[in-house]
């Protein structure tokens, strides 16, 4: 009797008490899936997590030829370089520029690939659709230096196309690449031109999964194209939009440093100098490795906070989130 009771009790024992066994059981059950994921995990471990140890140089006074362990610790309990960054006279200018460039990027360019995807989705002719897609993808494949070189040529004050058109209307030539007030518009516009076509791929993929019966039902209910777009297409890709927006928010303190380095000059530092370019100057040109690492670490931490915050907000408001 006692044994039977014991047996029944064991059988009915709540599952969570056996979590170790459950876990092991789960791993064993999904071992082939685990094996599939393992190379990727190892890759991330070796190339993304292990190198994080190198961030320690932000807390040291590291110089060329030293080892990570051999470099002496920085003053102020290792926070010397972090303090120094916030004492830099233009620190708030570069933070402002970084945030504004990204904010303008979101406001002016985030929605463009979505619109393009929605309009391409409306095209009936497959040939026409594919042709348009190919044409708008192409700028993405132009190398950055080449693209910036094209910008300089097009915007040249002497024989640039834009200034020649302006001259027809009697407007004096504008030296776009050297005026700080023009830097952001040129940066954002060229980014849209180059990236919008490529960016719409993921939305097109999401739209291709929408059940055609929904559109048929909408037609029967009298919905026109715009209404179909608004009530069917857009909501269908909303989860994708939100995920991408969250990821985009996680790069609020990042910026296309390479492109800015190619585009900017001392005359445009007022609006063009961002954390990335400052970091490049200090770290690569002045060889202040520890200081640059500290600035980069601050940047990454703020990015991470933005990402977490955006994810939380999205979860609260739209129930969509990365995790």
């Amino acid at each position, binding site marked *: 009797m006692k044994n039977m009771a014991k047996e029944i009790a064991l059988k009915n024992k709540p599952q969570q008490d056996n979590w170790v066994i459950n876990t092991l059981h789960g791993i064993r059950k999904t071992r082939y899936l685990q094996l599939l994921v393992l190379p990727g995990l190892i890759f991330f471990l070796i190339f993304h997590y292990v190198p994080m140890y190198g961030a320690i140089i932000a807390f040291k006074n*590291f*110089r*060329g*030829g*030293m*080892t990570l362990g051999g470099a002496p610790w920085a003053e102020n309990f290792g926070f010397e370089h972090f303090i*120094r960054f916030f004492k*830099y*006279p*233009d620190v708030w200018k570069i933070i402002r520029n970084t945030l504004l460039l990204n904010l303008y990027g979101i406001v002016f360019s985030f929605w463009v690939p979505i619109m393009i995807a929605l309009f391409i989705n409306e095209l009936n002719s497959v040939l026409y659709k594919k042709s348009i897609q190919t044409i708008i993808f192409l700028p993405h494949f132009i190398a950055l230096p080449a693209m910036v070189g094209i910008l*300089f040529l097009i915007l*040249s*004050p*002497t024989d640039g196309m834009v200034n020649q058109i302006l001259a027809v209307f009697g407007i004096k*030539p504008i*030296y776009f*690449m*050297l005026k700080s007030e023009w830097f952001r518009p040129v940066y954002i516009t060229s980014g849209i031109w180059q990236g919008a076509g490529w960016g719409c791929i993921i939305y097109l993929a999401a739209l291709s999964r929408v059940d055609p019966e929904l559109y048929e039902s909408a037609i029967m209910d009298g919905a026109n194209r715009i209404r179909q777009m608004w009530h069917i297409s857009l909501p269908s890709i909303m989860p994708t939009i939100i995920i991408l927006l969250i990821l985009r928010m996680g790069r609020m303190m990042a910026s296309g440093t390479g492109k800015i380095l190619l585009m900017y*000059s*001392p*005359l445009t*530092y007022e609006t063009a100098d961002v954390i990335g370019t400052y970091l490049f100057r200090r770290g*690569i*040109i*002045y*060889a*202040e*490795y520890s200081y640059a690492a500290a600035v980069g670490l601050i940047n990454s931490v703020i990015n991470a906070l933005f990402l977490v915050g955006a994810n939380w907000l999205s979860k609260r408001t739209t129930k969509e989130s990365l995790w």
Partner: protein
Amino acid sequence: MKLLGKCLFLFSALLILQGTVFATGGAEPPGGQELVTISIMSHGSYLVLPYGPEKNKEGRWKVRAREEFGIDFDLWDWTGDENAMFEKLNLLFATGDYPEVIDFRVRYYNDWARQGVLLNIEQFLDKVPNYRKIWTDEEWDLLYRARAADDGNLYAWEGNWPAAPARFWIYRKTAFDKMGLECPTTTDQLLQVLKVIKKENPDSLPFGTRGKGEASYIYGYFTFPFRIMGNCYDPDTGDFVGVEQATDKYRDMMKYFNTMYAEGYIDPAIATNKRPQNEANFANAKTYIWFSWPNRANWAEELQKKVVPDVKWVVSEKLITAYPDKKCYYQARLPFDGFAVTLTDKLKGEKLDRMLKLIDYQCTEEGARWSGLGAEGVHYSIDDKGVIQPFEKYNIWGPDYDNLNDPRKQDQIDHAAVAQSKAFFAWFMRENPYPKIIMEDPANEPQPLFFPRLTEEEGKKLADLSIIWDKTTEWYLKFLLGMEDPNDDAVWSEYLGELKKAGLDEVVQIRKTAFDRTYGK
């Protein structure tokens, strides 16, 4: 059997071929020693530079180093872009994966020496006895004053070959003669000349520029005419000039640039043009006067012949000055050049020994002559008066050098190594008369040279204040491009105010302290 025989024959033939035709490494190293491979990064080093139009052709020194010194130089990178190479080396030092030898601009070595990655030369002078012999006592002393790092040591195997005034005013003589113009000798005359040229040729951009970042090069053209001194006591005013961009002379120069740009004498896109755009101005015969090396006169001529067949560019024997009542500065003659080899702490053992032997050989008259002139009987002869006579094919200072199709580029010989042969220098000065003309002209004087030494702490403080150079460059462009008017006192005050906010006073004080300490003031 027949088949077996054929296979054996083929196999043997392949073995022989592999050992002869496909063998790399050239001749046997001396004494049957194994070749050592030394990694090098270079900005155009004589040690590895492939001469001539065939880029895969090995340089003379590379071949000789292998055949006679047992060194196979492994070129990691060679780039003409100084900034790119500097940045790359900084990255390599951070990773710990840097080359054993670097051949680059000496002024960067101080920073790297501070990081402890370079080998100072003092510890090897006993193994390179000929190095000290190529310097007189005065030159050796000057070398230390100008080039020693913070710890007082030298880190570059600097070459002893006198850097004389190198750039001069060159102009399109045929056009000047047609317009009844003389080459100007004052900045006011230059403006007048440019005005006439522009009037006669409205599409022209009479003042030439060429390379990337020419906006800064124009600055370099006029610092001597305006007698702009920096980081020393100005001989004209007696005041200490810590930041030359905050002086009245600098303001005068900015007003001048402002006028040149406003009147259309300079390309409007100068601040963003790259070399191809600037060179196109030459090729389209838009330019008439320039400040550059004398053989650029040939270069400009060759480019413009397609548009103006009878064009002739010449070198002026006069400098241009902004202050006719004073002498005009020219580049002071120094016994060293500015580019040199340095050895990193990666170079050890046998490799180090062989490299030192190579350097030592280059300091002998024989080695120096071979570097600068080549082999006697092959590249030059000596006449009965003992005067060097290069064969015409190798006379790179001839009248039409830098011709784009010049066959002499096949075997270019103009890179002295560590030491310059006295015979070479005598010949060089004979072939290139302009430095002597400029130096002997009583209207000119050499720019005073000073080498104040900073402490490590001062260097660090100046690095923290580096934002001031961003400001000076920003405003330099604003003045040049007419975005701000340097004639306006309010604007000039605003500019100085921004410099002060960026730490002008502190920079001046640090530099003054360093100067006074170095020169015992």
